[in-house]
């Protein structure tokens, strides 16, 4: 089997896995899901590091550094912002248990601390 076919096989199988894992997601979590998927493609950072680290051409290094900065913004920012959203979903149970409070502003500050 040629290398290209091996890669094609991995690609096709990944397509099915990708569709399968998200097909049962409720619309409640669609925004974090999109953001989480977004963070995962930030893995292009790995590619940016590999190409930058294997060249000595000045122009290429400059372009590579730009790519690394962009890719790390994508990856790190994506994971952090997804976590911020999901944090609010998991925290919701605690305040739901306590009776309604009269100062919602103070309540929300306290819970997010």
């Amino acid at each position: 089997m040629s290398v290209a076919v091996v890669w094609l096989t991995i690609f096709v199988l990944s397509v099915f896995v990708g569709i399968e894992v998200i097909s049962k997601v409720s619309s409640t979590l669609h925004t974090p899901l999109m953001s989480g998927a977004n963070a995962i493609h930030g893995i292009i950072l790995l590619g940016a590091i590999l190409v930058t680290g294997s060249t000595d051409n000045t122009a290429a290094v400059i372009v590579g550094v730009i790519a690394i900065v962009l890719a790390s913004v994508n990856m790190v920012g994506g994971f952090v912002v997804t976590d911020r959203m999901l944090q609010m979903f998991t925290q919701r149970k605690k305040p739901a248990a306590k009776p309604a409070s009269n100062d919602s502003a103070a309540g929300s500050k306290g819970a997010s601390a």
Partner: protein
Amino acid sequence: MLPTWVQLVYLACAVCFILALKGLSGPKTARNGNLVGAVAAVVAVITPFVVKNPATGEHLHHVPLIVAAIVVGTIGGVYGAQKVQMTQMPQMVALFNGVGGGAAALVALLELHEHLAAHESENWFVWAATAFTIVVGAVSFAGSAVTFAKLQELMTSRPVTFPGLRYLFAITLAAAVVLSVRLVIVQSMWLGIVLGLIGLLFGLLLVLPVGGADVPIVISLLNAFTGLTVAAGGYVLSNTVLLVGGTLVGASGTFLTLLMANAMGRSVTNILFGALKGGSTLGGGEASDRPVKSLQPADAAILLGYAERVIIVPGYGLAVAQAQHSLRELVDVLGERGTTVDYAIHPVAGRMPGHMNVLLAEAQVPYEQLKEMDDINGDFKDADVVLVVGANDVVNPAAKTTPGAPIYGMPILHADEAKNIIFMKRSMRPGFAGIENELLFDEKTQLLFGDAKDTMGKLLNAVKAL
């Protein structure tokens, strides 16, 4: 070839990405899933620092520079992610997606440069993947920049079209295809750069004609595009993590795009090319002078306070005004008075699917009060009062009655079936889809004008005083 153990590490990282997406399917496992994905990404990124490059047999060059670039990007990413308001989440996702696409295009250009410098002869499939990554990465970058500008209101959110757009569109697309084929046959750096520029132009032409309400679908689609470019980049670089990670995002993103389009009762092609074909997504965008009934917070309080069943339809306007905390308090007070209150959540309420759930989660609204559209639509006819706060398009009967309206065919919340409708609005300006809402002129509808936060405060006090 990479050492076997490194390949196994990459395989483990790829599996973790699958688990991360799987975790996101439920609120309980979501946060851990995201964490698993993040850890895998960090492990994958550290690997090239400790392993020799199989192609050159050397360790990484320019390590201090690379680390510095990662630090800069990390600081930027964390700063943006911490600072962004939940209402601005769609544009943040667009922004992050765009820079990812841009990075993928640059990586492919660099790889092309490396291959040319080393006079390597690759099979045509590698060159095709390179061309694909350059073009689609650039499309994703430019397209995301436009979606960001539209959502951030740096430019009009209405469709932007001009005479000859469709021809320019077709020419650009043809040029991208022809030059990509050319790159497969004869490689040159200039050709790569031109392809990148064509990709940028195509990204602009693709997103400019899309109207504001449809922009989230485009974000999801561009997200899938970036995923596919990363996958193609993985093939070019012979790296399984990139291939699997990118493909997962590409496949799930495409699927999510279709789900979202379904929730809006639209086809993806109609969303993308509707304006190209004849401006069907253009809305009026202007306020009408038809008569409406308005009421004061005190009157609204009486209606709400003595109702047995109240349904709240929250919209983006609520979150923008930061009125969700007061709203939750109002619901609590009504609950104490014995009123049954539920929130009716349209799947695309807010600026993107699930966005409203995030916004209400921020205000710590309990899960059990949030009802999805299909679960609550039958209850509207029993509701004494529906309180619509800052929502518009998701309750617009035009979706059922007006063929040709931008939202025609979109499933809506049946707020018009309730006995009374209180519509909290800042002005008579139409919603994001740019069309007038017939519900505003309904016999049973009364409008409560004002900034949602301010008015909600007054309403809350009036209900407390009952």
